[in-house]
């Protein structure tokens, strides 16, 4: 009866903690430098920043090191850290025309003002393993040619604005008085407004956002967009100066922004009542460099604008409740916790049902004998 009412739970978890640490180090060698993870695992760090919802490459790199490279676990650590940090101020909205671009392409037009800038993209890479990396001892790449920075600093017009000027693209409907929702400080109740939906989507797990977006593209939904623009670059973070009340730039964040042109619909101008046909817009914006997630997000943004959902991907609750990896991994993992009590309750029910069935069966056969 040694395992009845097992004691020593504390020793067990402390030992497990020690073993985890042992497994992290057991192969010996030199401990990874956090700066190496930060510098050379750029896209992995970007994933943690985006899902962890905290723009800190350094904290993300430490979390990755601590979790032996498990991105889900690492982004959980980052989010949990985020919960303990008080909010001191809000940034003010910035226009993404101000983005310092490293990449910008459009698949809607052959050429766009300022041109297509392919930038650091793996889109056309040959997916061949470069075995020479195994023996790489030092980096051998030349820095890119310097551009005239003043030229790059100028705001770059949006492709969708070109369509807007012609009255072919919906204008965003917004109430200037309305403050954006904050899903980290306000309870979630459905239907969620668009600012809250975009926040749930941008923190969503890469793979989940991708899978839901893909499902829509395949026909479980009606969004099959043309990409107006993919932009990757740096956006300034501005706050209002506490005394002077003027905007001050306090830093910059790398983001990926996608604007998708979706199917057109009949729109009524709220002021004039005039009817016209316009394209609809899907918007994706994620921390870091992650184009597939931003594109999938833009599809989901549009799909979730549906007033009368006809597929699961257009259903806010279905998508937004299942897209967050903190929630999904936590709940799936909880199945490993003891369920002795509830399972005992289920055993009681199944035995009781079986007993009743036996009773009825015996009664019936007895009746037969009497006949």
């Amino acid at each position, binding site marked *: 009866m040694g395992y009845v009412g097992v004691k020593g739970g504390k020793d067990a978890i402390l030992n497990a903690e020690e073993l985890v640490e042992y497994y992290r180090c057991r192969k010996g060698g030199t401990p990874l430098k956090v700066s190496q993870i930060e510098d050379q695992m750029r896209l992995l760090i970007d994933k943690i920043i985006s899902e962890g919802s905290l723009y800190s490459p350094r904290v993300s790199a430490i979390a990755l090191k601590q979790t032996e490279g498990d991105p889900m676990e690492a982004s959980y650590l980052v989010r*949990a850290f985020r919960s303990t940090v008080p909010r001191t101020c809000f940034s003010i909205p910035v226009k993404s025309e101000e983005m310092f671009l490293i990449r910008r392409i459009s698949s809607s037009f052959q050429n766009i003002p300022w041109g297509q800038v392919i930038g650091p993209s793996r889109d056309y890479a040959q997916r061949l393993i470069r075995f020479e990396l195994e023996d790489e001892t030092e980096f051998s790449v030349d820095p890119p040619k310097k551009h005239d920075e003043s030229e790059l600093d100028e705001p770059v017009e949006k492709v969708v604005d070109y369509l807007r000027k012609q009255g072919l693209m919906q204008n965003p409907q917004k109430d200037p008085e309305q403050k954006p929702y904050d899903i980290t400080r306000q309870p979630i109740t459905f239907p969620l407004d668009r600012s809250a939906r975009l926040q749930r989507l941008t923190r969503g797990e890469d793979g989940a956002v991708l899978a839901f977006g893909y499902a829509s593209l395949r026909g479980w939904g009606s969004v099959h967009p043309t990409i107006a623009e993919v932009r990757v670059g740096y956006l300034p973070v501005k706050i209002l100066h506490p005394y002077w009340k003027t905007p001050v730039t306090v830093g910059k964040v790398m983001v990926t922004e996608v604007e998708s042109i979706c199917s057109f619909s009949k729109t009524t101008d709220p002021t004039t009542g005039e009817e016209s046909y316009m394209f609809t817009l899907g918007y994706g914006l994620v921390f870091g460099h992650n184009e597939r997630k931003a594109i999938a997000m833009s599809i989901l943004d549009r799909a979730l604008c549906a007033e009368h959902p006809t597929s699961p991907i257009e259903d806010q609750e279905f998508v937004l409740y299942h897209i967050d990896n903190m929630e999904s991994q936590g*709940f799936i993992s909880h199945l490993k*916790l003891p369920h002795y009590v509830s399972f005992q309750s289920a055993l009681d029910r199944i035995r009781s049902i079986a007993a009743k069935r036996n009773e009825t069966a015996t009664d019936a056969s007895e009746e037969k004998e009497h006949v």
Partner: protein
Amino acid sequence: MYNFALLDENSKREIRRSVLKAIAIPGFQVPFASRELPIFYGWGTGGLQITLSLIGKDEILKVFDQGDDDSVNAVNLKRLIQLTTGVEVTSDTQSATLLQTRHRIPEQTLTSDQVLVLQVPMPEPLRKVESRETETARMHAEKDYGKMFVKLYEDVLHHGEITLSSDYPVLVFDRHLMATTPIPRWDVPKLDQAENLFLFGAGREKKIYAVPPYTDVEPLSLEDYAFRVEDFSNKQCVFCKSTESYLNEIPSPEGAGQIYACSDTDFCQKNRNQ
């Protein structure tokens, strides 16, 4: 590095406000902006956020999981709370002021100066019959629980018995249908007209609800199919010989049959000491 009880003071105050609202409307699920904690969603973060928001330096804390104070998850939660608050921890149900539990209410009756915080995985009792929250919100608002009764009726029709085992739905204050976290049916009658306050926290699902002291809590049933608790007749705990506690069945180490042991380890230990 971290604040007392981990969360920043504004967050704790915000959670306390949701708790107050929950007490004011017994059985109603109050949505709140649930935080990510250093333990996984689904592992007690709802209960933990309530505990962390209520806890003071003089609190005496008990945390137990499936009735067991030494269960790994209970130990882990206690470790975190102690690390960030330094409060006294006990396994003694009687002397604890704040108790956090997963899926059990202690066998020993709680008193008016004790608060029991329950960890909740699925706060929506109607989820079994309706997956959309917008729709369940409407059903609660209109006290439209017909679908749930149909479920009970169909159970009887197909299986000759109500199949709901743990997490048995109850009607609170004759108004709101409420999920019972899953505690076993054995514990459900303890919610009715209790002296103590019950707080329910669902972290992942972002809801808080409450049963205040001396509130009517009635398990859902059909006129001819009454609610009944788990049947442990002719069974007793191998350790304390109790016949009056919820028992866990354990496949016999000898290979044939089974033995039974109290799920509430504190209750069992006290019985043995007597």
